[in-house]
């Protein structure tokens, strides 16, 4: 993608830090960040897997739908979309679990309501990841193309890049890109089984890091070619979007950092931006040994001594898996609206193998290019720039 004129027209997010992107950003900037805790929702069965849970009292299925609706409504409202504009929009969704929460909730409720009886077999009744886009399209009257990417941790970041590409090709007029991932026993236990879960605290890029912690949430980012600016202070251009999928390792992007460096270089080249022009980096920074090593080394190789502030949001909000791309973009944009680049949380000690310390204080957020990176399961990589004008 070259000479992009794709702009962000609106965004919204629900995270453990708040039920809107500005609330999440303000809490992040103010340092009002609670550590991950044992899940309080009735269907979450293992308190040892601490997570970043969105606060809510009520039925977990209702909560999942409320997260989606709140994020969408916020984004659409910020973009000022008319009903006709919503109808002609295309919907690109990134999710891995979809509405699998339904299976977990119904099963645990059946067990709870029948104490002393043998547990029934768990059923899988959800309709696959595409069910989420059907739900959204039906609720908001979106009639354009629908594409759901089910690509683990890069699902919604890939969706953003594909959306920009389709806009560039004029295949679609407007893209509503959604990320959605409620907490699941499936993923909490899954990453623990892979020995990738930190039972204590997520510590991105820290020498003492020992794994990720999952955070739930939903977000929507609206992209448009030559679009009207979002209702806010800044104008945000989406540029250099690049996705790449390697085939060397299911769980790592290669700890030498070569792949990470190549992917980011491709992004910079296609956007015609020099490394020295990057104001700050919103890194993937999961807190796992290998991911942070590969990403850290890749960043150092590419930027060297001129490495701009590096921030991982996962120490504050957790890893939202397939929703991470949309959520972290939306919250970051709201931080830029506040005029500040947020700091990283969870860091204690520099890892000599990585060789840098992520940003430990908030920094001013001037106009310029901000780099976003994501490196997921299946050697999947996404990177893009958002240029504040």
């Amino acid at each position: 993608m070259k000479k992009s004129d794709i702009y962000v027209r609106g965004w919204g997010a629900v995270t453990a830090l708040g039920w809107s992107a500005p609330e999440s950003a303000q809490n992040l900037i103010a340092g009002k960040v609670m550590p991950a805790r044992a899940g309080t929702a009735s269907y979450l069965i293992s308190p040892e897997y601490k997570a970043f849970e969105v606060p809510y009292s009520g039925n977990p299925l209702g909560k999942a739908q409320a997260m989606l609706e709140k994020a969408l409504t916020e984004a659409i409202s910020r973009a000022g979309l008319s009903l006709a504009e919503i109808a002609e929009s295309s919907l690109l969704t990134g999710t891995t679990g979809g509405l699998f929460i339904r299976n977990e909730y119904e099963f645990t409720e059946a067990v709870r309501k029948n104490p002393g009886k043998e547990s029934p077999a768990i059923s899988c009744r959800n309709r696959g990841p595409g069910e989420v886009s059907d739900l959204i399209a039906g609720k908001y009257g979106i009639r354009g193309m629908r594409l759901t990417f089910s690509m683990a941790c890069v699902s919604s970041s890939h969706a953003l890049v594909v959306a920009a590409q389709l806009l560039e090709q004029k295949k679609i007029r407007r893209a509503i890109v959604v990320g959605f991932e409620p907490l699941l026993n499936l993923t909490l236990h899954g990453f623990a089984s892979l020995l990738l879960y930190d039972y204590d605290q997520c510590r991105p890029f820290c020498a003492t890091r020992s794994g990720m912690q999952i955070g739930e949430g939903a977000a929507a980012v609206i992209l448009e070619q030559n679009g009207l600016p979002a209702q806010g202070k800044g104008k945000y251009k989406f540029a250099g979007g690049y996705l790449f999928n390697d085939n060397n390792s299911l769980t790592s992007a290669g700890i030498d950092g070569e792949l990470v460096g190549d992917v980011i270089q491709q992004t910079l080249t296609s956007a015609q931006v020099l490394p020295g022009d990057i104001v700050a980096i919103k890194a993937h920074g999961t807190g796992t040994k290998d991911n942070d090593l590969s990403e850290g080394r890749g960043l150092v190789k590419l930027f060297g001594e001129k490495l701009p502030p590096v921030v991982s949001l996962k120490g504050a909000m957790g890893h939202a898996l397939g929703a991470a791309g949309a959520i972290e973009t939306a919250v970051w944009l709201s931080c830029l609206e506040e005029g500040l680049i947020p700091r990283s949380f969870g860091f204690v000690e520099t890892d000599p193998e990585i060789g840098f310390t992520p940003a430990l204080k908030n920094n001013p957020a001037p106009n310029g290019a901000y780099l976003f990176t994501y490196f997921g399961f299946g050697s999947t990589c996404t990177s893009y720039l958002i240029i504040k004008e």
Partner: protein
Amino acid sequence: MSSSSDEKKTILAMPVIAASYIGPALAPNLDAAWDEAQLPLNPDDLVQKIMGQPMRRAGRFIKMVCCGALACLKKVPPGYLKTKKIGIFLATGLGNVDEILPFITQVFKHEGGFPSPNQFANSVSNAAAFFLARICEIKGVILTISEEELSFESALWLAQSYLENGEIDLALVGGCDVFTPTVEEYHERMNLKPDNARLLPMGEGSSWLLLGKGNEEKIGDILAVEFGSKLVPPEEVSASENILSASEKLIAKTASSGKKRFLLPGFRMDKTDTHFWKQKGWEVDDYLPYCGIYPTAAAFGIARAMQKNTSTIFVHYNCHASGKQVFVAASTK
């Protein structure tokens, strides 16, 4: 069918270089008999036959994805692929439920039982595409797309945009879903009700097309992939007049005169009036009895029609339970 005027229509044909289909009988490119009550069959013989070695740690979904795609790639000389940039577009409505269910069962087991990390890794939504990419030594654009019963057509549409923008030379586009018990739960996962789909046995499959963009040696062309921008009400989902009109419009844009015309009805079309279609000069290629109902059955129908009939033009019609329609027009050499 009305379409959004702002979205660029798919006009450029995509040459189909190879096609392959595997249905629930697990017999590549054969209309073999099968029985819903016997599903799912063990795919290990199929794996041995196509891959030449077992895939011991993979589940059925991953095996089916890899076998289906390799069966397609084997139809072209290996040298042909070596210099090409290939993108993989895996469409699946339900994904690897066969790995997810045993894993989550272990998680909820009250009396211990540590869930298998391998099973979790295989249950992740893009694991199948990763293994396929690894076997085929493909890097770059490898996407897993899920849009319920419109998954395959969505992947086809996206592949076309990638071919058009020059990022890839070839697109390997496939649809795969696997049968997981029970039949009743499978119905629920697919949102099948007596009044919104045909009454047919449930099935599974892995069917693939290798698409190009130039003057390659080909077996046919995908002429158009067109999604409706309005939702049709339930009573119009199977309306022959409307489907005929949309199909005629779609193929009118292409040089297809003189070719025999076929309609391939998707499983939401609960009845097909073959007499009506015959009167209008169309045959009906009812492929569903050969593969059963599953989210990506359209891939089976289209890949099979690509191989089965020469010098034809066909339109596959599909409709989502919500009323969103999609037409795929294609021609064979």
